[in-house]
């Protein structure tokens, strides 16, 4: 197991490097620089600004300086658009927001999805089961950018229960709608997978043996069926988490949470090179780490798999 972890970390570093180089190159080939503005800068002023941010140096030098800066000082550089903040500031402010509602959405999606799937499987072909299947499929295809404005209309305008947006430090009233909007479609996916996986396990031979042996339903489900049934669900958690973080762009836009997804899109549109790079790298690290955790979890549950 330990060797496995080491190997994965070993791969992670070249992966990150490739990611950095790729994104950096891509960004610099984009038309429009961070200082293109309508009130056009006179040549000289533009040259001054670019010199100040080191944009006039050759590509290799910029890239190297950048990587060195990260590795030695953890400094992702200044933001080009927000003159009084650095990339670290941008990330430090936006990332905890995304992380908070992201984690909550994740917890909600997994717990509700898994429970729903198990109950539906146990009560196969009942009314509940059909409702559950209907819900899962419906919710899976409903995009969150449709759900979000409707949620605001219902909960803020009509009912007046919840504030229409903002973050305010992450108090619970501001979390509810973002979490609902973000978690729903994944909840449905997870429920669906859980249900079909549970059904399969419940019909397998070893469960039949357990039943024949006279074990109670509860024991069967929780002690014997659950673990193997969870396997397919776990292998989805990695991509699910990543998708959630990317889907958070919509949440940020509609609920004005100030999260990192929105910052990224803004940075891309504003050609704010350093913010783009910073967030991409952050996301890369997250993705790699999370995938690794999931793989470890998977291996721990299923003793047949050993790397």
């Amino acid at each position: 197991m330990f060797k496995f972890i080491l190997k994965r970390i070993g791969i992670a570093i070249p992966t990150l490097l490739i990611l950095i180089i790729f994104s950096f190159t891509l960004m610099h080939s984009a038309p429009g620089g961070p200082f293109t503005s309508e009130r056009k800068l006179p040549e000289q002023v533009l040259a001054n600004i670019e010199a100040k941010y080191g944009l006039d140096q050759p590509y290799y030098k910029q890239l190297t300086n950048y990587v060195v800066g990260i590795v030695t000082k953890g400094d992702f550089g200044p933001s080009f658009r927000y003159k009084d903040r650095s990339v670290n500031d941008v990330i430090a402010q936006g990332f905890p927001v995304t992380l908070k509602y992201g984690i909550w959405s994740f917890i909600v999606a997994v717990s509700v999805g898994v429970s729903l799937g198990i109950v539906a499987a146990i009560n196969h072909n009942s009314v509940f089961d059909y409702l559950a299947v209907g819900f899962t499929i419906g919710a899976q295809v409903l995009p969150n950018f449709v759900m979000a404005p409707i949620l605001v209309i219902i909960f803020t305008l009509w009912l007046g229960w919840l504030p229409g947006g903002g973050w305010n430090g992450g108090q619970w009233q501001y979390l509810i709608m973002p979490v609902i909007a973000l978690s729903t479609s994944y909840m449905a996916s997870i429920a669906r997978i859980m249900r079909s996986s549970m059904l399969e396990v419940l019909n397998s031979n070893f469960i039949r043996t357990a039943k024949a042996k006279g074990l109670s339903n509860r024991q069967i489900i929780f002690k014997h069926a659950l673990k193997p049934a969870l396997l397919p669900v776990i292998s989805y958690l990695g991509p699910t988490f990543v998708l959630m973080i990317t889907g958070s762009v919509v949440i940020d836009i509609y609920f004005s949470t100030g999260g990192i997804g929105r910052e990224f899109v803004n940075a891309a549109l504003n050609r704010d090179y350093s913010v783009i790079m910073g967030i991409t790298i952050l996301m890369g690290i997250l993705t790699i780490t999370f995938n690794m955790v999931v793989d470890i979890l998977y291996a721990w549950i299923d003793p047949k798999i050993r790397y």
Partner: protein
Amino acid sequence: MMVIGSKKITQMAQNMANYEQGKSHSLWVDARRRFFKNKAALISLIVLTLIVIFSFGAPYVTPWSNEEIDWSILGSINEKGMPSIASKHYFGTDDLGRDLFARVAQGTQISLMVGFVGAFIAVIVGTLYGAVAGYFGGRIDSVMMRIVDILMSIPYMFVLILLLVVFGRSIIMLFVGLGLISWLDMSRIVRGQTMVIKNKEFIEAAIAGGSNHLTIITRHIIPNLLGIVIVYASLLVPLMILTESFISFLGLGVQEPNTSWGALISDGAKTVLYERLWQLFIPLAFFVAGLFSFFFIGDGLRDALDPKDR
């Protein structure tokens, strides 16, 4: 957004491979029979066919094009823009007085095309890549799969946005971008499957018979992968469509005056407050129906082709 059941497909693929020996022909016949017995899949197939017919036939039914503005309605959409037979706007109009019937039809064409072409690219690239890796094994396989691992760790949505922002928006770019992202999983599955097939006797026979690598890969291995490829592809199509809808929401998708399901829905969602509900619900209905159908068909195919079905 949804995730695809790659583990289940791998399982199915293994079942198929083991079943393969000697009974290749009747598997397909069996599968077809099972598929048509699956009510949900059958209905979905019909629904999908209807949608396709609608999208291509609609232009003949309506006098409006997808970009023509109805000047008489333009200033008063709330009052006159609702679906009505009289005004010949069967689905109503959008905020600029353009006929929604024609726009939904055109949007359906684009969305379906995005789905199919994206899935197609993913399938071609993924299958070839995975088959080659699995067949040659050893060092080549190691390197090729490492590359896949690395690529899988890239937060692809961000890259897609970057691509669209850097290279400008066009349908081509969208296809390329979507295709580039989605072949990775497929290549893994195909590679695993190829390795299983590779060890079967009939491959040994072919090698002994003097066929070269390319022939073996194309003539023996790939046909046996068809099953999983089909199933995965059918599950990939809705994923492509969903991704496109997200990209459209960001404003990076299809360009005016053309539209897509995603663009129509995201525009419609914004006008719900102004009581123009038809602008959301009609395209949404198509969107949901289309995706539903792909789901059920994909599931149906998977169930039909898996010999170990309960």
